[in-house]
């Protein structure tokens, strides 16, 4: 299908896509490194919000600035910035996330010049009145700074219109996820990955049209493909993926080849980034702030002591997952700290899990494959 092909083209080389889009339409592009960036405000300001997943073509460029124990996400992004791979950016937004991204922002500011550099120091505590008040204040200041830096006016109406557009995208993505949950074979893991990468790289209007087209295509495919055959013709095991960012389409095919099928995710590059709709009534900045605080929480933030685990468990149960696959970037502290707790919580509730660590891209070689197959074998025998 043409739409899917386009999504894959973007996912394969998002930088070239962005560069070409800029050249063709003259649209300014604002990079961001974490899903807590308010894309609605960025878009209302006339920028294409572009989520940076470092490609790391010249990752050695980061060696002069970062030690070996830094995660691949940060290392690749910095090397891309220094080596000119991100030359199409008109600025970059750094929402406060983890310790590594915090320092990435400093190193970026000190070693590159993209013009606009903004630290969006969002609250770490996401619940309570103080957090809401502060979040709103942070977003208001952000809007003001954008306005004065680029000599523009970002009206409430423009922001509301952008929020409405992203709400429709979120609904669409949720429909796509619901479809996959029901008929896991309807869309492959790598197709889903490509669609999500396109969402984070494309002009929202165009993406919305393409998403609609994809949904129509999938929904019109008659009785949905249903469950695809797994290994040796057996029904594939339903899996949920949990972790930070997973920008490796290979990972999904690896799971499918091993006899599993992804039915749900708890990823920052997946469902966590579009979980919450924005209330379009009332103060729009306040609504945006609230929706970001209410979304499925990132482990570098604090909701309450049990929120994240409960949500994961509930989601895995709802997805009727036979198992959970944790996929972490090596050196990703917030996720690695939560892992033993989440693993144990799932286990206590009868859900098995397996954990993979990857440097930056997933390399489905020998040991990973063997472990995955053994895990699915175990799930089949339960």
């Amino acid at each position: 299908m043409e739409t899917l092909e386009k999504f894959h083209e973007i996912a394969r080389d998002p930088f070239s896509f962005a560069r070409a889009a800029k050249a063709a339409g003259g649209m300014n592009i604002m990079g961001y490194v974490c899903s807590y960036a308010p894309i609605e405000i960025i878009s209302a300001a006339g920028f294409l919000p572009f989520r940076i997943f470092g490609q790391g073509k010249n990752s050695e460029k980061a060696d002069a600035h970062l030690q070996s124990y830094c995660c691949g996400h940060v290392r690749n992004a910095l090397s891309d910035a220094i080596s000119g791979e991100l030359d199409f950016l008109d600025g970059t937004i750094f929402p406060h996330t983890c310790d590594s991204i915090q320092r990435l922002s400093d190193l970026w500011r000190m070693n590159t010049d993209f013009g606009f550099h903004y630290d969006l120091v969002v609250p770490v505590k996401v619940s309570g009145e103080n957090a809401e008040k502060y979040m709103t204040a942070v977003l208001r200041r952000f809007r003001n700074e954008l306005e004065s830096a680029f000599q523009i006016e970002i009206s409430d109406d423009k922001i509301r219109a952008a929020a409405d557009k992203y709400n429709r995208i979120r609904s669409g993505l949720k429909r796509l996820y619901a479809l996959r949950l029901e008929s896991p074979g309807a869309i492959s893991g790598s197709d889903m990955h490509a669609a999500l990468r396109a969402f984070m790289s494309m002009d929202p209007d165009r993406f919305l049209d393409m998403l609609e087209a994809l949904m129509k295509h999938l929904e019109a495919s008659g009785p949905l493909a249903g469950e695809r055959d797994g290994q040796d013709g057996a029904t594939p095991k339903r899996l949920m993926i949990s972790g930070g960012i997973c920008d490796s389409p290979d990972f999904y095919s690896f799971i499918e080849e091993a006899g599993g099928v992804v039915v749900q995710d708890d990823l920052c590059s997946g469902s966590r980034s579009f979980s919450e709709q924005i209330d379009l009534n009332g103060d729009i900045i306040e609504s945006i702030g609230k929706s970001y605080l209410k979304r499925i929480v990132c482990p570098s933030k604090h909701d309450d002591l049990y929120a994240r685990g409960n949500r994961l468990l509930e989601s895995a149960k709802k997805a009727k997952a036979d198992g959970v696959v944790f996929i972490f970037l090596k050196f990703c502290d917030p996720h690695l700290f939560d892992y033993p707790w989440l693993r144990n919580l799932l286990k206590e509730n009868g859900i098995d899990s397996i954990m993979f660590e990857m440097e930056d891209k997933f390399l489905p070689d020998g040991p990973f494959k063997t472990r995955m197959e053994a895990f699915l074998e175990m799930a089949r025998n339960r």
Partner: protein
Amino acid sequence: MAGHGEKEDSKKQRRKIKSVAKMKEIMTTYYIEAKTARETGKKVAWITSGGPVEPLIAMDVIPVYPENHGAMIGASKMGGDLCEKSEQMGYSPDLCSYACADIAAAPINGGPIGGLPEPDMLICCNNICGSVLKWYEIQARHFNAPLFILDTPISHVDFSKEAHDYVRNQIRDYIAFLEKECGKSFDYDRMNDVGRLSIEGQRLWQAVLDTTANRPSPMSAFDAFFHLALIVTLRGTQEATDYYKTLLAEMKTRIKDGIGAVENETYRLLWDNLPIWSKTKWLSEKFSSLNACLVADTYTSAWCGTMKYIDETDFLESMAQAYSRVHLNIGTDQMAETVIEMIDKYHIDGLVVHSNRSCKPYSFGQYDILDIVRKKRGVPGMVIEADMVDERSFSESQVETRIDAFMEMIGAAKPV
């Protein structure tokens, strides 16, 4: 020969800091009190090293510092073993070793003091890192104890009014949290006294650190790592203030008597990052043997580095800013500025950077800091790859070779 040995011994004796004994006594009493809190009916709060302890002191709550525990674990060389235990629990070996060692010690009362006293509450201030947040969440679930988080937004470039208001509001929540957990009203008069003592303690600690601008330096950073314990754990108490008065007096006497921490102090170095707790003695001896004294460090000065933001007449309000703008909660370029100020103040010949696997916010950016220092002051630097607690990450031979090469270079640039 015997005469020579005796002379050496007496010289060594003369260089020993006498206040050490008093310090050990205070810390022992403190830990006994904390460990017997249940019997004496006092409440225990676990708190991060950069957290606002003063309201706890004002509420008669005993503050306990898991990071100090981590340091003790490291110094007793129990870090490797406890980190291994945490790995068996499922924690990655790449995580903060303070956190991992403490998490592993909790269920088995492990470590040099048989575990920390169980917390009645936990207070986590994220001004030093994001790892403390995860660590405290884990321990709060383990002990089923209430957790208060003071979220202090980082000042990459500046500290916004919004952030200031946010922290101030949270301090009000903190007081309310303490009132609830302690079942009594907050005593604002007592808080004023504690605040005053805290400021006095910080001033005295800074004065102690300032004495090392003298040649020879009366103490080294390795001594500072040790004497730091009170400004961390008992900040805001009379005991800490009295102790630092004694220590300051001793340093002044040493200056007057020409006693240096290193016998033939020729080179003066600055240390960046946390100590390598399992190797402080070895490193101290190594540098001394090359006539080098680590006269200052960016770590121990963090507990008195934000005094400029404190208003003595309104400690509680002004501490919002002071606690938010600590050394680790500012931009890398500002951290480099602090290093440069210290280079000038303490007449530094070289920068020794501990690239600490456990502490990403302290370590990432160090290469840029080295570069800035080299460009702005022409001061060379070296990197020691290690970990603050886990002795498995320390290669003695490799570090020794690096130190030798570095000191040779400094020696060539500054002939005696």
